[in-house]
């Protein structure tokens, strides 16, 4: 059973913060004091009782922008992760189980894609593709699925040579039973922790693309885009750009802490109850 007192303090902080981020994203319109694109004051007003985080480069309420930014950031990152994960895991598992030319072909293709840094390949592709959310999610998801493919294939290959899988094959079980009943339950804990890491990577990748002006397009902005909008203020000593940047870091650390905890928890079960 899950006992809150047994959760390490760091993991607890991670869980609480992650939950807060998610709640903020979901209920953004209810929480935000102002509209996303609403200009309510001067450019780069300092923090005040009216505007807790001050205003941005166009005089919009930074806190409201942050809250809406959470929504966009999480939305895109979740979808991209879901895509990369399902694509990578399905292909990786099937490659491990079926083997042969199917495995060779997929694996060589993934090797090839991974021999170019993801950001560079992303930039190359985005130079010709239209800038919209669908493109962004597809590009992020597909490029990142290579890593999920590698991991799930490696995990599945390891499990596939275990005697208990051989025993199932000798019994005459079909691939459905072997994948879903023998391999998957044992591959879950490394994959779940990888899910966290992939999500963090999606957040960072999205932020980087937006920061470079190739991600979410104005007037909408994710946190990376907000850094770009406000970066010119830095040289005048205006920290507006640092706030969304810090939010990205905080989100990434929280998810990391949760992923670590999940990994420790699941491996410690050693196949036991739970």
């Amino acid at each position, binding site marked *: 059973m899950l006992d809150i007192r*047994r959760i390490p303090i760091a993991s607890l902080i991670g869980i609480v913060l992650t939950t807060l981020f998610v709640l903020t994203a979901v209920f953004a319109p209810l929480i935000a004091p102002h509209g996303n694109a609403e200009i309510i004051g001067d450019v780069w007003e300092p923090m005040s009782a009216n505007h807790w985080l001050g205003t941005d480069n166009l005089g919009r309420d930074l806190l409201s922008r942050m809250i809406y930014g959470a929504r966009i950031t999480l939305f895109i990152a979740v979808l991209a992760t879901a895509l990369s994960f399902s694509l990578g895991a399905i292909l990786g598992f099937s490659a491990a189980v079926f083997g042969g030319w199917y495995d060779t072909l997929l694996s060589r293709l993934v090797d090839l894609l991974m021999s170019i840094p993801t950001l560079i390949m992303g930039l190359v592709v985005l130079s010709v593709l239209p800038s919209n959310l669908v493109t962004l999610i597809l590009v992020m998801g597909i490029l990142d699925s290579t890593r999920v493919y590698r991991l799930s294939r490696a995990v599945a290959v390891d499990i596939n040579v*275990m*005697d*208990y899988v*051989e*025993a199932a*094959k*000798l*019994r*005459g*079980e079909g691939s459905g039973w072997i994948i879903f*009943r*023998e391999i998957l*339950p*044992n591959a879950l804990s490394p994959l779940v922790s990888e899910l966290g890491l992939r999500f963090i990577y999606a957040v960072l990748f999205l932020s980087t693309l937006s920061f470079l002006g190739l991600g979410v397009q104005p007037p909408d902005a994710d946190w990376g885009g907000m850094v770009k909008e406000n970066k010119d203020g830095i040289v005048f000593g205006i920290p507006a750009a640092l706030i969304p940047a810090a939010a990205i870091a905080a989100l990434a650390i929280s998810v990391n802490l949760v992923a670590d905890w999940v990994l*420790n*928890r699941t*491996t*410690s079960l*050693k*196949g*036991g*109850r739970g």
Partner: protein
Amino acid sequence: MADTKAKPGLLLDIRNLRIEATVYPPGEAPKTITLVHDVSLTLEKGKVLGLIGESGAGKSTIGLSSMGYGRGGVRITGGEVILNGRDILKGGKEGFRKLRGREVCYVAQSAAAAFNPAHRLMDQVVEASLLHGTATRAEAEKRAVALFKKLSLPNPETIGERFPHQVSGGQLQRVMTAMALCSEPDLIVFDEPTTALDVTTQIDVLAAIKDAIRDTHVAALYITHDLAVVAQVSDEIMVLRHGRLVEWGGTRQIIKEPRQEYTNALVSVHEIEHREQQPGTTPMLSVKNVTAAYGGSHVKVLKNVSVDIFPGQTLAVVGESGSGKSTLARAITGLLPPEQGSVVFDGRTLGNKLSDRPKEDLRQLQMIYQMADVAMNPRQTVGTIIGRPLEFYFGMKGRERDKRVAELLDEIEMGKGFVDRYPAELSGGQKQRVCIARSLAAKPKLIICDEVTSALDPLVANGILKLLLNLQQVEKVAYLFITHDLATVKSIADSIAVMYRGEVVRYGSKSKVLTPPFDAYTDLLLSSVPEMEIGWLEKAIAGRRMESAGN
């Protein structure tokens, strides 16, 4: 000197040794467990004391304590370790460093892992002597070459120039012994030095070690789980269990007149009642002229192998590593389709590939593995593991299945209470029993047992063998028993096939195979199996010399 109670000639005197370790069970507070409970022992100069026990008996831990060393968080928390008249536990780190490699040396179980792959053997052999300044480099190398010669290593003058990976396992084990002897220590700790070797290699290494101990007058702690091995080299034997002393006495007394029940069980472990059955007229399964290789390779792992198994009987396939005995099992089950030849079951030829065989054929042939813990899905309960074949082959469901699972658990002498357990919650022997139940659930005619007892402690292994024999009586099932252990074969087989480099070199009923005249390999194999007999080693080596002189 400091200790007045020390007898002259006494080298090592361990008193009330207590060793503890902190374990970190996941999700729980760290716990301190005691590995060794107040064990005392003494060892005179030039004598050999054998430490014997099953895994977890604390024998390696005690051996290493004579060097003040604890593996991974193991701490000596009580008692004294008096070496050459002083308590080494009071010497601190500096003191340990001075005695390690000089007064006490260590020979590990796996020399292949214990040698540094980046350095030449000679540099590693003389390292301790140079470090402690007991010899110049030239002296030490001269000594090393002499030791290589004594340990009958090939090319003793030049073998030191090699790297560890360029030398075979048996030779490395001897080089490691030379390394321990090179700094002329007072005591050597041998930690299962022959366990990882094949039986025909073991005898040579054992003889080399014994000669070297005798000629150099070094004292030794010889740690092993094999009583027959330790009986060859030790003056005294100490039996340990769960970190406590069971019995300590002269070698003859321990193996001939054991006083404790546990010792007696260890001594008589291979005595299993089994009357040999004569082969019937029609075999149930015939392997006919099977040749096989892995992945289209030219190296044939099986060469023209033919054997028969009769209903309700046991065929034992014996051989050392690389003999192809496990490959034979893979060919029979269809995991490795043979290149030539066929497998005939109940009068019909089985499909070469697994996917060509109907479910019914698969049901008739079941398999039990060496490593029970990886043969069961760690995420399934015992109930699921045993219940699945019932569901899969017989379509049993719900209460009917649960009832049969309970019966099977009874048959393997485990209770109903185990149904909801996960494999991780079982002991090694229990795991293997569950695997047996899983294969029985299919009601097969033949079970292939691939080294099913070699990962288990002797007493547990014995229990498994007895269980298998009982089940054979009840279920009338035949076994193909693959093993490297001739003692096991003698206990349970009806017929025997001896394999060497992919070929069957001797095959027939047990009494026929084990009766001379032997072929050369079978002779070598049979004469290499340690017997619980003082002086067996000398006899075996002498027999071998005579033979090679005769040839």
